[in-house]
């Protein structure tokens, strides 16, 4: 790629939790570099340390030992407020449980990160939120509340919320964990499409199928990266969707097609 500095650069990161007299080593020295435009899947069983890694990558937590640079900015040792501002400016989060504000319309949910922006630039937050929702194919659902949307649609609102600040990095923590298999493929198609548009994506998952849509897989076990390899046989979610529709024998337009055309 270009000579730009990597989006993520962590080296020799350790995370130790002290519980009473016990020390729990969640991460025991992790090195990882993610370049701009990559789409990587972090895989590991529960207790492997992948959640801790995710929290550190997401600037929700800081490493005990080691250094972390996000987009060239040193994160380790930052204050709570500085971390909050960095999350707002550089990161987009997508969670397993969608984590939308209940009883709050889709557009209000998407607008939220812009309200916490401290850069001081004047923007039409309403318009940006609407555009972001349009980008994930929900341009016609602006005023729907989460309870009126399906799981897949809720997750798209969450993705729209993550994208609205034009983050450097999109962090997705088990984004398909609560979705059925077809919606999972739809979601991966959206992620692949966004990645094709140049957005750097880090997926945390324990499903090997989902990881196959990424460009690179990082396996975590016992607080260490045990394998870091490119995906050999990368799957294309858009193709898979087409196959799914064909297999069902219904040639009619799948609702998912619209999102591929989007943006």
């Amino acid at each position, binding site marked *: 790629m270009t000579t730009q500095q990597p989006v993520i650069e962590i080296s020799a990161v350790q995370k130790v939790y002290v519980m009473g007299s016990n020390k729990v080593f969640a991460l025991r020295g992790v090195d990882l570099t993610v370049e701009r435009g990559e789409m990587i899947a972090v895989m590991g069983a529960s207790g492997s340390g992948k959640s801790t890694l995710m*929290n550190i990558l997401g600037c929700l937590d800081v490493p005990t030992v080691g250094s972390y640079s996000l987009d060239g900015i040193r994160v380790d040792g930052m204050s709570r407020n500085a971390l909050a501002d960095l*999350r707002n400016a550089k990161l987009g989060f997508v969670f397993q449980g969608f984590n*939308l504000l209940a009883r709050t319309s889709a557009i209000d949910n998407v607008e*939220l990160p812009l309200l916490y922006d401290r850069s001081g630039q004047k923007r039409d937050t309403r318009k940006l939120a609407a555009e972001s929702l349009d980008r994930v194919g929900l341009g016609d659902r602006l005023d729907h509340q989460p309870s009126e949307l399906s799981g897949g649609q809720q997750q798209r609102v969450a993705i729209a919320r993550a994208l609205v*600040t034009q983050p450097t990095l999109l962090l997705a923590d088990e984004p398909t964990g609560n979705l059925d298999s077809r919606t999972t493929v739809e979601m991966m198609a959206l992620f692949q499409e966004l990645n094709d548009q140049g957005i750097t994506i880090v997926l945390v998952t324990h499903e090997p199928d989902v990881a196959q849509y990424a460009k690179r897989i990082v396996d975590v076990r016992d607080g260490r990266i045990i394998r870091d390899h490119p995906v050999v046989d990368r799957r294309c979610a858009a193709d898979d969707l087409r196959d799914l529709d064909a297999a069902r024998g219904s040639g009619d337009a799948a609702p998912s097609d619209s999102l591929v055309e989007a943006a």
Partner: protein
Amino acid sequence: MKQSTLMKIATTSILKNKLRTLLTMLGIVIGVGAVIVMVAIGNGAQSQIKQQIGGLGTNLIVVMPGASQQGGANRGAGSYSRLTVDDAKLLKQNGTLFSLVSPVVNTRSQVINGQLNWQTTIYGVSTDYPDIRNWTTSSGSFFGDDDVAASRKVAVLGQTVASNLFPNSNPIGAQVRIGSEPFTVVGVMEAKGQNAGGQDQDDAVLVPYTTAQTRLSGFVRIPQILVSTDSADQMTAAQEEVSSIMRDAHRLNGGPDDFTVRNQTEIADAMSSTTKVMSGLLAAIASISLVVGGIGIMNIMLVSVTERTREIGIRMAIGARGSDVLTQFLVEAIVMSLLGGVIGLGVGFGGAALLGHFTGWATSTPMSAVAIAVGFSGAVGMFFGYYPARKAASLNPIQALRYE
């Protein structure tokens, strides 16, 4: 973060939980309402008492005989009168801070009109008396200085006397007998009602003091001289002037005063300070409910922080600082309690009006009470909202996001 966005976030959050907001506000509504009603009652009572005392006469100074001593035994105030009509005349002539002076000679007597008769108090007074007592005639006119000078047998009736002796006819110009002396009725005073002691002030007949002295009581000594100062501010100075004129007139040369001088403001002050204590007490009791309302807000806010842990986690994950979350929750608490305060004002005013209507109590609420009630409810929101807000702000985003 902009102030307006903050307000928007807080108010939408309040509106999202209408029932909870309403229940939370209820405590403040009742608290502020109670304070307003109690202050209204206390204040109303105070102004009613002031009005009653004002009815006794404006800026009134009363000169009464002093105590007399006989063989070492002090016989108490008023036991021996050395006040004379001359004292009253001297006061009238020499007074600079007051212009209205009237001696008062009183005696009880039977008043007779044909078949009807009525026992009442006859007051011998000067022409200044109506002005001093702030009392005017409702029909006819008061007697004049020439009537006083000539000791004419003219009388002005109080309403109670007039209605008892002249139930169906016009008393003006009629003849009545006071004791055995015939008097001509020249006027009727307007109704004045009871005084603060519960006495019927309309049960009286007013005649020139000269006439009263010569025809009715026969005493040269008089029991009372009423003086009215020109303005309420000069009360103390006027009282001092009255004393010094009296001392000269009685040639006391530094000896103990043989008279006492009192004014109505002393009585008024005593009465209003009593009601002030009462209304203060009522307001203090009512403000306890305001504090209880504040604790209600804290309670709900604490529950709400727990209930909304996930929301707080989301907000923090997408870039809210701890201070943003703190301000949001604090603004929510303040807006709720201010809103409750404003509604409480309405409830308080309505309650005071209803109470006044059904009990007949005088109620009035000073604007300062309104300002204090609203300000206090805002302060209650801030005070009791701070702890829950700080709790919300100090949550760990990772744990808050995982909170089920």
